[in-house]
């Protein structure tokens, strides 16, 4: 039992990592990975929504008719996103300004819709919780990796503290082109690593 739950948790971080494995949720990944703090904030917000929507959808999975399940899922997800939005505005105004419209846009993040459709609507509550936590942690980790590369190269600092001495920061990594370049190269490296280990995982997909 514990082993099965652990497997649900682990797959979100490794094989089915939303960013590097499935290539989902790219828009927020690129937009908010300018600093590690923003990345963790976004990851935490997405994890909360994912957890809430997975639990709720798993609870109502036998009541909702098949034909209208997607609109129902959207309403559930949007409710949790609104909760996060209001809480962020009240308690973390600085983070809220930094993340901007990407907080309301968690609604259309396909990691969350994808987990609702592929997992929570078919499984019991407990596995859904672990699935949500695994996916959330995987997303946060991936975001933090991208953000730390960008923050170190772009500002020479990490968590706002200077890290490299005598280093001329390459501002481009904090701006839009740096985000695309960093993600492109990191996904290429993951592909290369998988090919080396003769794993037949081919990155396809690509979605907001």
């Amino acid at each position, binding site marked *: 039992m514990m082993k099965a739950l652990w497997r649900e948790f682990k797959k979100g971080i490794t094989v089915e990592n939303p960013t590097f494995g499935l*290539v989902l949720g*790219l*828009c*927020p990944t*690129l*937009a908010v990975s300018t600093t590690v703090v923003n990345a963790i904030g976004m990851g935490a917000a997405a994890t909360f929504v994912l957890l809430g929507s997975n639990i709720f959808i798993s609870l109502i999975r036998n009541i909702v008719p098949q034909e209208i399940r997607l*609109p129902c899922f*959207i*309403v559930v997800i*949007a*409710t949790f*996103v*609104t909760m996060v*939005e*209001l809480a962020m505005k009240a308690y973390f105004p600085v983070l809220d300004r930094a993340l901007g*419209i990407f907080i*309301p*846009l968690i*609604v*259309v*993040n*396909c990691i969350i*819709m994808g987990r609702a459709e592929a997992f929570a609507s078919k499984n019991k509550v407990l596995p859904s919780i672990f699935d949500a936590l695994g996916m959330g942690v995987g997303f946060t980790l991936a975001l933090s990796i991208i953000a730390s590369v960008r923050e170190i190269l772009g500002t020479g600092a990490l968590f706002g503290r200077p890290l490299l001495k005598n280093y001329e920061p390459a501002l*481009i990594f904090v*701006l*839009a*082109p*740096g*985000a*695309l*370049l960093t*993600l*492109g*190269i990191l*996904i*290429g*490296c993951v*592909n*290369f690593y998988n*090919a080396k280990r003769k794993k037949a995982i081919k*990155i*396809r997909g*690509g*979605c*907001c």
Partner: protein
Amino acid sequence: MNIQQAATVIISMVFINNFILSKFLGLCPFLGVSKETKPAMQMGYAVIFVMTLSALITWLVYRFILIPFHLEYLRTISFILVIAAFVQLIEMFIRKTSPPLYRALGIYLPLITTNCAVLGVTVLNVNDFFVKSNAVAGSFVLSVIQAFSAGVGFTLALLLMSGIRERLDLADVPESFKGIPVAFIIASLMSLAFMGFSGFRF
């Protein structure tokens, strides 16, 4: 509102704050439908159409339903539902009335519902053109113009990308970088070029 204000919004949305290359909204069709020029163009038309009309409807919903009842916090829920229902309606409508148009746009319409560019532009409109729940002067027209030009900017980036990717088939890309990684690197170079527009001042 005057002409200059409208022109600023258009230039800003098409070039300076291009939705794909500088704001990162709507990346899924950008990667998914950019392999050939023709479908990219059709997707672009569909996005312009849906974005403009969604902006129009959500502005009305926000101004005449949410604000009078002090329900501004329901913005996200109501907008996504309005957009989803509206896209479904268009799909049914054009399937009945114009089969050729349906063949051209039909398969892209369901994809557009979950496109963050559409929800993004409606949220941006509310942020930009409402101050403390009061519509600024020319708010309605500016919202529609902003949505339309964001759609045009989206289509421009999609079209350029599809042109490059058609040529890319002939290039010798390292095995692990084929597909998505190289598409990102190209997008990065395009984004660098588009950054040049940020020098525009009005």
